[in-house]
């Protein structure tokens, strides 16, 4: 967790915050929120663990030679893919966990990264509407 420690902690913190907001929203808007809450917590935590494992994999991969790094990263990806599959399968089979909540929890990492790291620059949105002739 050396090189990407700060980034991992930042993303994990944001995922937990968004997860918490979604849990509060489910408490307000749903009649039976327990399944949703369990799904969101389950999916969110597995998503964070997957992200941390990805960080560890990439930190190790960049120290290898390119060909080995390629095989190593791909094999670790399929390992994480299987874990994700087992998590979704459990949430589909278990009646007390809402599968949609789990899926949202798993995908929270992506939304957090997109909103905090890629689309957090206001200049990007201003440039969309700026005419090229003005430069």
């Amino acid at each position: 967790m050396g090189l990407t420690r700060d980034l991992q902690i930042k993303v994990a913190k944001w995922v937990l915050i968004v997860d918490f907001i979604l849990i509060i929203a489910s408490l307000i808007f749903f009649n039976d929120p327990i399944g949703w809450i369990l799904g969101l917590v389950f999916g969110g935590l597995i998503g964070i663990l997957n992200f941390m494992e990805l960080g560890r994999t990439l930190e190790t991969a960049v120290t290898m030679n390119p060909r080995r790094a390629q095989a190593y990263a791909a094999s670790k990806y399929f390992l994480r893919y299987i874990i994700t599959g087992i998590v979704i399968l459990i949430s589909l089979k278990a009646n007390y966990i809402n599968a949609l909540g789990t899926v949202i929890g798993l995908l929270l990492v992506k939304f957090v990264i997109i909103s905090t790291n890629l689309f957090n620059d206001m200049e990007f949105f201003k440039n969309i509407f700026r005419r090229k002739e003005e430069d």
Partner: protein
Amino acid sequence: MEPITGRALILAASAIGAGLAMIAGIGPGIGQGYAAGKGAEGVGRQPEAQGDIVRTMLLGAAVAETTGIYGLIIALILLFANPLVGLL
């Protein structure tokens, strides 16, 4: 020979659909491996930029990985919680 029922047809088509949806999981694996290989090349060429390279690659790889999860979700829903059978 028994005639094919609507339910059997839906289940067979769902199984084929699940198989096709799983193809989506291969792409991110290949892409992530390729990115890691190029990242290793980059670190070899410029070792002082290792932190930046790994951080940028981590963000890109995490976003790419979710694309595979979409396909996995579709496949598992078609296999284990098929909503189409209930429509019969």
